[in-house]
Every structure is written in structure tokens, then in C-alpha cells.
């Protein structure tokens, strides 16, 4: 480094990361009267330029597949700026056989710019899983502790859904759901036959105006980013109100390198690389909130070594980087000849499913622990590249006949995505690679990852269920999976579902956990972690809503502590 730039200013709090957890912390803390420096490793988001709402594929030369057709691996050219599986100059490594895929966002708002908006509460039992089945660990908090914060988050961001009394999927404060699509009615009917629960989904999309934001206009393009902010993203819903307080300083292209510790063992600020100038800079703060995403936060803690914390910051337990889980993911696809008869109609709806299948075998004896839910999609969506790959493979040929087949098959496919709970295991964790640094000179992560028999059995059950549903609906199940090989029963590589959590888990016992129930480090009282890292279990409910509820709760606690003079 050419020089170290020191700012004399001392912020009340430095928040690292501007996604769901960091954005929420920035909002609650600034609204509570504290000054916040918010560090984001990527650039600003610019909806006018970056969001591709209403763009037709033929309006761009690459038709949605991106330069060289390579955008497909990062979900296509039209998606909101979201990150990537590979970031140039910022590698990570995998232990032999691990094959963990790490998706990282480098932009204001993080992954909330493009996420699926699936906003599900964890159930009471999810906080007491070990008590129920002896696996993993219980949370230090209960559903009753977090429920008021679920209420607050849902009331603020807006989530549609219906009250259903499903034990594994608690009801929340819901906006009315959109009407089901034809494809969803087909599945609902099949589920009724099979006694599988199928209910309106719960997505963070406004079906009514809320808190100054307009209602959804049903273009199905939430993933592209919404020009009217009718869906939830941190960049449009959390950062703006934090700005309005006048107490937020957003610092973009700032890659946190180390959390600095004073002689009294408390955090004094954050050292970061200013990517634009490749210089090291420093933010001084009375408290630090880490929300860089579960693995990035673990990396930062592990890289923050000092005489007081030789093992990495707040890591006397050795649990930082441990207990890493992703959702179990296995997908399938069915062809439904009955849908060929559907007249042309607007099938768009919201960006995501209007119906889903919550975990319905909650009270049964299954050959695997915990559970999964099923997401669905398909039908008469906006045509896109790859849509007729299957027709090409199966029907082959060319000419007028091929064209007629594509026309007939359009809108007749429904895809299913099973998303289930992985149990933490000792072979799955991340650590600092001793041999590698990224282009900013920061030591990188090395991943270890292994599915256990629990997850494989769950994936098998998903495949069996998809097939049963498709066949009950008179369709033809198209997905073929192997029972062995790298992806048994279609189980995806670890990390692929982008629900990685657990790497700085909370717990009642400082010997086996990193944080307490308020996301506060056991060992460093002015240090908090508010992304997916604190999660003790990773149930089949996508983690974002819980991350935000925990971040809100932690931020209120931090505000209280600050008032009492217990911070910094």
C-alpha cells in the first residue's frame, strides 16, 4: 500500500455490507439516531440504467444470453446486477472433492436486487430442532422472541400470502395473494388428489400500495429489478430511508479487510481497501456490524487476527467458518399435454410463483430428518433462449414440423424446485487458505463441503414427489437423475441454492457458538453479525426474511446498549 489514509471522524457504527442484513441494520440504526458508515464492496446501483424492466429480448443484440452467450450461467442478461459465481481477481479455493460454489454480490443492495422474494418465517420447531430430533444445535432464542420482528419486517417490506395454519410454515402479516396461474391450478388439483398441501406462496411483492411504494404491475420480472420498487430490495426499500435521516454515509467499492481492535478488546473500526485507488483506508466506529454475507463475514473475522484474538476475531470457540450449510436443492420438470389446449392469455403475474407446496409431511415418519418445500414455475412465460432445447433434443428434425411442435409445446412445461434443510456436519466448513490472497491482498477462503445421507434421501424424496404430482396431473415427468455420481437424485452442488448460512452461529454457550441471541459476539461486545452467519439451522424456509428479522432485533438491542453507554 502506498499510503494509509486515516479519517479522523468517528462514526457510531460501521456496517459492512448493504444487503438484507446490512441494509436493515443501517436503516434501524440511523433511524434510531446513530451515525452509520456503510461499507459496500461493490458499486452503486442505478435502477434507470441497470434495471431492464419491460425490455424485449429482441431489443438487445444478445437477446438475453449476454456476451458470447455466457450470461446464462449467472441467470441471464436481463437480471438486476446481482453478482456472479466467479469474480475476477477475487478467487476462493475448494478442498479436493468439495465442489462448493460461492455466489457473491458486489453491489449496493447485494443479492436482494435479484432474489426470489420468497419470504417465509421459520417455524417454532426450527428453533428447537435438536430437542426434537437430536441433530445439530438449538437456537438460544425461540420463535416467540423473533415473531414480533417478523411482524415488523412483513409490515414494512410487504409480503403477500394467506393464513393457512400449516405447522411448518407459520402465518404472517400478509397482503392479499395474486390469483393463481393456470399451471398452478393444474398442480393444486394434483396435490389435492395426493393429499399434498399446496397454498398461495409468500413473496415480498406488493399486491397493494404500501409505505409510499406502488403496487405490483404484474410483469413477472422482479428478478430484473423493479422500476417502481414494488418488490423488496435493500437498495430500494432499506437504504433510501436510512439516507433520509442524514446520518448514513455510504462508501462503495470498499472491500473490508480487517476489523480493528483496541487494547481493551473492543472493535474500534474497519480497515478496508478502496478498490478505485487500491489504497487502504480506515473507518473509525464505536461499534461494528458485519453483514458481508455468511462466508464473507466469516472470512473477515478469521482474517482479523490480533494478539488478543490469535484465532481470528471472536473465534475462541473455533466455530467461525464452521456449521456451514446451504439448502438441499433438486429440480425436476414435467410436460402437461392438457396445457396445449389453453388459449393464449397473459400468464405473467408477479415475479415468481403464486402457489407453492410447504413442508407437508411434518408430522410423519420420513427416512430423513427435517423437511423441504417445493417451488414451481413454467407455462406461457416470455419466450427466452433455451426454451425449446428439450423439443430440439426430443423431436429433432427441422422446418415447418419443428416450428409446429414448438408452437404446440409452448407453455406446457412446469418446473419444480425442492428446497430442503441440510444438517450441519463436521466436513462442511470454510477456512482461510494459507497459500492464496485475492487481488486486494486479502487471504481467501477455502471450502470443504459434503452432503450426508440425510440430504441425499431428501433429494430422492423430492424427485419421487415431483414425479407423483406430475403423473397425478396427467403429465409426463421428464427429469432423469442418477442414484450415484456427483449429483445423486439431482442434488445440486453445495452453494448453488445461494442459501449459505451458519458460519458464525449464535448460541447460549460461548464455547460452542460465536454470537449470543442478539447477534452480538460473545467476546467483543461492540461487534455484531447480522447476515446469514448467525443462523443455527437452515430450515426449508429461504433465509432472507429471518436475516432481516434478526438484524432488526440486533439493531434495536445495539441502540439500547448505545443509550446505556455500553458501546464503544
Amino acid at each position, binding site marked *: 500500500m502506498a499510503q494509509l489514509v486515516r479519517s479522523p471522524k468517528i462514526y457510531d457504527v460501521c456496517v459492512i455490507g448493504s444487503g438484507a442484513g446490512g441494509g436493515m441494520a443501517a436503516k434501524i440504526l440511523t433511524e434510531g439516531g446513530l451515525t452509520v458508515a456503510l461499507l459496500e464492496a461493490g458499486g452503486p*446501483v*442505478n435502477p*434507470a*440504467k441497470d*434495471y*431492464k*424492466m*419491460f*425490455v*424485449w*429480448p*429482441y431489443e*438487445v*443484440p*444478445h*437477446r*438475453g*444470453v449476454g*456476451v458470447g*452467450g455466457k450470461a446464462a450461467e449467472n441467470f441471464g442478461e436481463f437480471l438486476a446486477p446481482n453478482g456472479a459465481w466467479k469474480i475476477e481477481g477475487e478467487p476462493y479455493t475448494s478442498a479436493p472433492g468439495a465442489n462448493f460454489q460461492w455466489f457473491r454480490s458486489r453491489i449496493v*443492495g447485494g443479492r436482494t436486487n435479484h432474489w426470489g422474494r420468497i419470504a417465509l418465517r421459520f417455524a417454532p420447531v426450527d428453533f428447537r430442532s435438536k430437542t426434537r430430533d437430536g441433530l445439530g444445535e438449538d437456537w438460544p432464542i425461540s420463535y416467540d422472541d423473533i415473531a414480533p420482528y417478523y411482524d415488523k419486517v412483513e409490515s414494512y417490506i410487504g409480503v403477500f400470502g394467506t393464513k393457512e395454519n400449516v405447522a411448518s410454515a407459520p402465518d404472517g402479516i400478509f397482503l392479499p395473494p*395474486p*390469483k393463481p396461474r*393456470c399451471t*398452478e*391450478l393444474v398442480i393444486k388439483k394434483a396435490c389435492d388428489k395426493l393429499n399434498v398441501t399446496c397454498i398461495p406462496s409468500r413473496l415480498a411483492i406488493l399486491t397493494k400500495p404500501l409505505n409510499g*411504494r406502488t403496487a405490483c404491475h404484474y410483469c*413477472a420480472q422482479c428478478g430484473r429489478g423493479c422500476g*417502481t*420498487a414494488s418488490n423488496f*430490495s435493500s*437498495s430500494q426499500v432499506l437504504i*433510501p430511508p436510512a*439516507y433520509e435521516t442524514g446520518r448514513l454515509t455510504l462508501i462503495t467499492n470498499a472491500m473490508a479487510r480487517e476489523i480493528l481492535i483496541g487494547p481493551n478488546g473492543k472493535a474500534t473500526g474497519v480497515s478496508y481497501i478502496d478498490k478505485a485507488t487500491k489504497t487502504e483506508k480506515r473507518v473509525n466506529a464505536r461499534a461494528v456490524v458485519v453483514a458481508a454475507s455468511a462466508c464473507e463475514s466469516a472470512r473477515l473475522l478469521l482474517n482479523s487476527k490480533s494478539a488478543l484474538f490469535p484465532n481470528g476475531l471472536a473465534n475462541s470457540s473455533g466455530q467461525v467458518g464452521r456449521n456451514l450449510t446451504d439448502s438441499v436443492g433438486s429440480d425436476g420438470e414435467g410436460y402437461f399435454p*392438457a396445457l396445449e389446449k*389453453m*388459449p*393464449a*392469455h*397473459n*400468464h*405473467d403475474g408477479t415475479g415468481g410463483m403464486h402457489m407453492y407446496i410447504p413442508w407437508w409431511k411434518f408430522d410423519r415418519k420420513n427416512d430423513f430428518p427435517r423437511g423441504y418445500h417445493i417451488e414451481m414455475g413454467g407455462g406461457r412465460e*416470455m*419466450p*427466452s*433462449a433455451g*426454451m*425449446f432445447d428439450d423439443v*430440439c433434443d426430443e423431436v*429433432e*428434425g*427441422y*422446418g*415447418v414440423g*419443428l*416450428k409446429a411442435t*414448438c*408452437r404446440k409445446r*409452448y*407453455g406446457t412445461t412446469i418446473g419444480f424446485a425442492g428446497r430442503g434443510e441440510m444438517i450441519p456436519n463436521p466436513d462442511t466448513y470454510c477456512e482461510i487458505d494459507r497459500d492464496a490472497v485475492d487481488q486486494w491482498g486479502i487471504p481467501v477462503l477455502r471450502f470443504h463441503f459434503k452432503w450426508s445421507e440425510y440430504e441425499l434421501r431428501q433429494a430422492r424424496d423430492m424427485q419421487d414427489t415431483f414425479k407423483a404430482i406430475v403423473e397425478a396431473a396427467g403429465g409426463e415427468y421428464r427429469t432423469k437423475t442418477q442414484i450415484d455420481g456427483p449429483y445423486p437424485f439431482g442434488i445440486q452442488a453445495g452453494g448453488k441454492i445461494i442459501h449459505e448460512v451458519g458460519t458464525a452461529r449464535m448460541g447460549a454457550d460461548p464455547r460452542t457458538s460465536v454470537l449470543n441471541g442478539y447477534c452480538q459476539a460473545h467476546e467483543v461486545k461492540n461487534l455484531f453479525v447480522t447476515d446469514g452467519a448467525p443462523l443455527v439451522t437452515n430450515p426449508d424456509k429461504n433465509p432472507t426474511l429471518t436475516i432481516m428479522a434478526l438484524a432488526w432485533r440486533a439493531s434495536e438491542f445495539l441502540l439500547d446498549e448505545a443509550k446505556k453507554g455500553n458501546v464503544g
Partner: protein
Amino acid sequence: MSGISRRDVLRNLAVGAAGGSVLQMIPAQAAELAHELVQKEKAGAGGKYTAKYFSAHQYQTLLLLCDVIIPKDETSGGAVEAGAPEFIDLLASENEEYQSALGGGLMWLDSFCVDRYEHVFVECAAEQQKEVIDLIAFKKNAIVKPELSQGVAFFAKLRKMTCDGFYTSKIGIEDLKYIGNTALAEFPGCPKLRE
């Protein structure tokens, strides 16, 4: 971009992600502008597209094949009218895998035709062209005649890319009768579920 100035765009940049009606309009207009630029580029070359990756001869072959894969019919125009060849050429110019699969595939096709008919594909008689296409359009032929397998793989790749080019075009999207990509006050749901 009439009605919205560069200054407006910059002001929105400064405002950031605040939302609002003006933001809603810009992406579509920007896209329209991008579309116009592409059209102008085409028009600038006398209306005739100059291939970015393929040689003139290869591109001519590509046009023919795209037209064979998705021709004009009673419902809609074909893949050439829909711009599929330009789309394929653009991707090939940026992707080495496509260069060998498609560029190499076109050369394989010519060699095959020269061996068989003493002419490159475009110079073969119509019935000869059809004979070759009928051989490489089906996987089962490569099982009987393994020497066709590279041709079959090439055609399979080109068939998918031609479909991609066609069904992402205005013509292709209208052919499928997709209705949407528009703002609705209410989502109407499923019109009618037939048994």
C-alpha cells in the same frame, strides 16, 4: 429519448434507487435506442449485414441452414427474417466454443458435400441439400453411420441456436402468441382450465 434528457438520467443517477415514474420509463427507452442502433448499423452496410465472425461463404451457408431449420410458414416469417443468423454470428464472434462447434461444423458440412457431390453445400442441388440435412438432423442416423456423428452434433447445436434466435425475436414471440411484458392493474388469473 425525447422527453427525457441526459440530465434527467444523471439526476436519477444521483437520486439512486428512490423509485418513481420517470425511472419506470427509462429502461424501455434505452432499450429502444439500443435496438435503433443495431438497425442503423445494419442499414449503414447498405442493408446487407457483414458477418463479424463467419467468412462470407460460411455466412451464406448459415443463412441457408437457418432458413431450413425455421422457414417461413402460414403463421409467421422464418429465422432469417427474425435475425437468427446475425444473433448466431454475434455470439460466435465472442465465444471460442461456438467458433469451433459452428465454424468447424460448417467446414465439416462442406467437406462432406464435396466428398459426396463434388460441391460445397451452397452449390449443391436442392435435393442434394435436403438429402444431407435429412442425414444430420437425426441422432439415430449417426448410430447407423458413425461418420455422421460430428455433422449430427453440429446440426443439433445450430438447431438450438436458431430456435433461440427465432423465438427471442418479435416474429417468434408473436408466433407463440405470448401475451404480456406489460403493466396490468390486476392480474386476471387463469382464464379457463379445460379438462
